[in-house]
């Protein structure tokens, strides 16, 4: 039996733990929390007052043979093969998989902690997302500013989704005439990948949302209710939903050089090994891979690591497949990979339905039993294939 220690308790950690062969691997999952949040639901908690089934107990999501320990990991010694927890317990391993995600860090931007405290945010957790809803619910008119305060973001479509759902909410309440919407982004356009922006930007403009590009947040003055950019521009707001910067988990590593300046794990793009180590892997948001931080990445990467540990040849292809809620019952997907640029995937009701369906099957998907369905679906929506068959891309080509 090989000892596998998985650090983290989210999508990647859970799926990997459940899919490793129990006859060959003794799996221990170490996480600082037993609460597993379905993070995409935070968007709907914040903008649609959703409440149902947002979080479950991690112990009930893991297969019975998996050992779960609710303890924060403080140190990972890669050459020594030891993981140490805050309680001083040590776990040795044959393989370690880091799936610790990222957390929000408003302290990087002066004034942002106060703004997040006042208006909430929809990337930190359920309570913060509920606060966003409470502020929107009480809003009676003025300027709503929404955007990301750092280029590193969990779920790149989420800023656009947030402002579209906020606009839809105010329109539905008859407050649209009294509300100005300002969307700010550090990128050259509302969605950083150009093919997807060709879909998203016209929708934002059609809904009368003002767009401020290259707006890299420098500081916020909560008393003057003003956001300042590095480039010297300002946004005056009445309600600000500002997505905080993200950093990797607060875990010390030996050697320290396996993490970058944002505390993300320097990870091989194909094998998902932590740089310089054959028996250590990183998956999901915790990595520095040049792909979107999203559940689908954690899911696909967990499967690659499971196959490598089982002795198969496997490599991650950088696939992203992120659903985007465009409001009004329309959705699309951001689909790309290391070798395929993002596809221009036309909005439709089916895509919106698929996003809603994923929310329903998420908990079941963590067991790993739906993988044949996912395999079929991901092959059918392969970005190389779509770029040949989608009319929008044929025209662009």
């Amino acid at each position: 039996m090989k000892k596998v220690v998985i650090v983290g308790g989210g999508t990647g950690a859970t799926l990997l733990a459940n899919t490793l062969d129990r006859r060959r691997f003794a799996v221990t999952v170490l996480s600082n929390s037993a609460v597993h949040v379905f993070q995409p639901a935070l968007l709907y908690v914040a903008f649609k007052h959703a409440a149902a089934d947002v979080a479950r107990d991690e112990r009930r999501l893991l297969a019975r043979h998996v050992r779960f320990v609710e303890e924060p990991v403080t140190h990972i010694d890669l050459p020594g093969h030891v993981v140490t927890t805050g309680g001083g317990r040590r776990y040795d391993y044959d393989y370690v998989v880091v799936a610790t995600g990222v957390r929000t860090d408003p302290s990087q931007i002066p004034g942002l902690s106060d703004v997040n405290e006042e208006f909430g945010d929809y990337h930190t957790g359920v309570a913060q997302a509920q606060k966003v809803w409470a502020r929107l619910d009480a809003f009676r008119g003025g300027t709503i500013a929404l955007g990301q305060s750092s280029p590193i973001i969990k779920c790149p479509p989420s800023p656009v989704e947030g402002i579209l759902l906020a606009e839809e909410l105010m329109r539905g309440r008859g407050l649209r005439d009294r509300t100005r919407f300002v969307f700010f982004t550090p990128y050259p356009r509302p969605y950083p990948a150009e093919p997807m922006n060709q879909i998203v930007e016209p929708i934002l403009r059609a809904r009368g949302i003002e767009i401020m590009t290259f707006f890299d947040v420098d500081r916020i003055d909560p008393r003057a209710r003003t956001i300042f950019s590095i480039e010297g521009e300002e946004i005056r707001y009445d309600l600000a939903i500002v997505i905080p910067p993200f950093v990797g988990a607060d875990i010390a590593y030996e050697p320290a050089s396996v993490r970058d300046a944002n505390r993300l794990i320097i990870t091989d793009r194909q094998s998902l090994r932590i740089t310089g180590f054959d028996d250590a892997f990183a998956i999901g948001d915790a990595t520095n891979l040049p792909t979107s931080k999203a559940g689908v990445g954690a899911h696909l990467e967990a499967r690659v690591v499971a196959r490598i540990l089982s002795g198969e040849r496997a490599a991650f292809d950088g696939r992203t497949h992120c659903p985007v809620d465009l409001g009004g019952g329309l959705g699309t997907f951001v689909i790309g990979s290391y070798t395929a640029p993002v596809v221009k995937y036309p909005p439709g009701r089916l895509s919106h339905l698929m996003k809603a369906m994923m929310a329903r099957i998420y908990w079941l998907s963590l067991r790993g039993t739906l993988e044949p369905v996912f395999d079929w679906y991901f092959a059918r929506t392969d970005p190389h294939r779509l770029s040949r068959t989608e009319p929008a891309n044929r025209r662009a080509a």
Partner: protein
Amino acid sequence: MGANETMRTIVDSRGSSCPGPITDLAIAYRRAKVGDEIELWATDPGVKPDVRAWAAKTGNEIVSVEDQPDKIVVVRVVKR
């Protein structure tokens, strides 16, 4: 290295399609000091107009843009 010395940072964004190389450049830019040079490696051809627009907006200078044989675009910008 002293606090006043400038640095050259290499940002390897090859293979990035979403969110894309411009996001990696923006991350490096936040960390850069005046006078620093950032060298961005990318395979996405859209990086060229993006970096030009970004430099114009932020008042940075593009030192060079090169198409290298393996299709990698090398762009250097100087934070002013």
